[in-house]
């Protein structure tokens, strides 16, 4: 019996391919791509403002609403946050990636790489929660700042309207810290991969030719590692754009894109507007990816 099925299948490689590929592709096409396509269609529908029902007719009016000042402000705020998070992550990630790639012994390196990738997989939510504890008004960071006698500085920063709030746990500044923390591993890994590809002989050649260590770093290592930074920035940027958990947990009334989408579809029941708003990050990301490709980031992924 098995023998006969086996022979039958052996003679029909095309059939085997369909049997193997069929279930996963059916699932991904029907469930996943189908849903995405459906969402795209919804962004061309509109919401009848009085009855709150969805009008299933083609219109661009929902997209026009995403360009209203209030929504544009949300896009700008989110993009600025994403840019700031990306810049700071690159600064924190570089020394660690550099150390792993060039100085850590092979044994230590295995452990360091596990140490960097572990947080990627481990609970995102719990790590956000941890920062809630740290940033709380009576929490560990305030205690530490008090210890250093810098309470006045913190109060002054928090009184600044654009980044401050009632406490670090409820302010754009706190949100920024948490974003930078959560996406940091996504920045370290591509930079480390890019640095691994810089041959040591190239660095030696540079110093043989009389370059000082800093010169070698600036003219040889940094340019070659830059595509890695750009590759990492794709993740930090995209993930910040789409996140809604962190703004919901630490933010105030100044909305971010993910948060706005969440509330439009949830409490407001305005699925068309929510769908159109999600196209915002998608468009920003496409532009970003096109720039990143020109900078050679895809070779470093």
């Amino acid at each position: 019996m098995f023998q006969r099925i086996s022979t039958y299948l052996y003679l029909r490689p095309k059939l085997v391919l369909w049997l193997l590929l069929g279930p996963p592709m059916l699932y991904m096409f029907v469930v996943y791509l189908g849903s995405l396509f459906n969402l795209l269609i919804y962004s061309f529908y509109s919401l009848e403002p009085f009855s709150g029902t969805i009008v299933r007719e083609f219109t661009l009016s929902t997209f026009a609403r995403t360009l209203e000042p209030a929504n544009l402000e949300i896009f700008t705020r989110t993009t600025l946050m994403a840019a700031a998070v990306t810049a700071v992550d690159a600064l924190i990630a570089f020394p660690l990636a550099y150390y792993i790639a060039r100085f850590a012994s092979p044994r230590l390196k295995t452990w360091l790489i596990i140490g960097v990738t572990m947080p990627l997989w481990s609970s995102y939510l719990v790590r956000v929660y941890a920062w809630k504890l740290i940033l709380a008004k009576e929490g560990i960071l305030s205690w530490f700042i008090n210890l250093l006698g810098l309470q006045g500085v913190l109060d002054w920063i928090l009184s600044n309207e654009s980044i401050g709030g009632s406490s670090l746990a409820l302010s754009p500044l706190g949100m920024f810290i948490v974003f930078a923390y959560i996406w940091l591993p996504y920045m370290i890994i591509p930079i480390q991969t890019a640095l691994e590809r810089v041959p040591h002989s190239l660095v030696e050649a540079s110093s043989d030719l009389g370059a000082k260590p800093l010169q070698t770093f600036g003219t040889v290592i940094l340019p070659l590692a830059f595509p890695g930074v750009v590759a990492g920035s794709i993740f930090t940027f995209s993930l910040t754009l789409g996140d809604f958990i962190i703004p919901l947990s630490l933010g105030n009334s100044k909305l971010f894109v993910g948060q706005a989408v969440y509330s439009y579809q949830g409490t407001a029941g305005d699925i068309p507007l929510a769908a159109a708003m999600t196209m915002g990050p998608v468009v920003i990301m496409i532009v970003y990816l096109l720039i990143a490709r020109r900078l050679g980031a895809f070779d470093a992924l």
Partner: protein
Amino acid sequence: MPSKAYSGQNASWGLKIAAFAGLLFLHMPILIIFLYTLTPDETTYTFPLPGITFKWFGITLQRVDFWRAVTLSLQVAAIATVAALILGTLAAAAVYRSKFFGREAVSFLLVLPIALPGIVTGIALRTAIGSFDIDFSFWTIIIGHATFCVVVVYNNVLARFRRMQGSLIEASMDLGANSFQTFRYVVFPNIATALLAGGMLAFALSFDEVIVTTFTAGQQTTLPIWIFSQLSRPRDRPVTNVAAMFVMLITFLPIFFAQRISASSSDTDGETK
């Protein structure tokens, strides 16, 4: 084997400190949670802790809603993992054994659910499920989780297939084994640890997923959703601390072992998210 970038030199103190500080920044917050499970303070997050108590562990373990959430999350993760193992292995086998039109697109399609922001996947699924008038249930959560778990298994198994020698399969067939026997005695033992690693990562991913779940769950509360509701409106702080530690441990162990398995079989490709 040292990489070609490895210099064998000692790093400067400045670099060592910066690297160490980066690593500390990555791991310190998790330890803070463990610390806070011991606080006797019920209403705030006061530091230094006003004292030490172990009573919250007992209290959490007696909470019915906690256990219900844990059970639901374990069930969802188990079924999503099984679905991911089947679909991911099938896709990996297809891509490995034949060249066909659109082969590159398969990888792209599978990676899309974790490349696009989770909110896009979540709201897309919610809208689609809603348009078909399907009730949000246990199964809609699993449908959502399976979309992003498949790629983890796929990456692990495909990486293993690529390192497996094709001649092994040919030898088995030459010696008279049929396809099923070849799979059972040759292919399966070769990919078993990759399946284990991929499955554990998929399990961990599903167990603590919150973004897609908020959109695809109805009245069901998975453990991450339970914790999320505590994030914006904290009520049971001490219980949340213990629950957070619990999630951390349950996801930590499979991830740690998956990483070790992958490291020892040296296929570091494809494990990064």
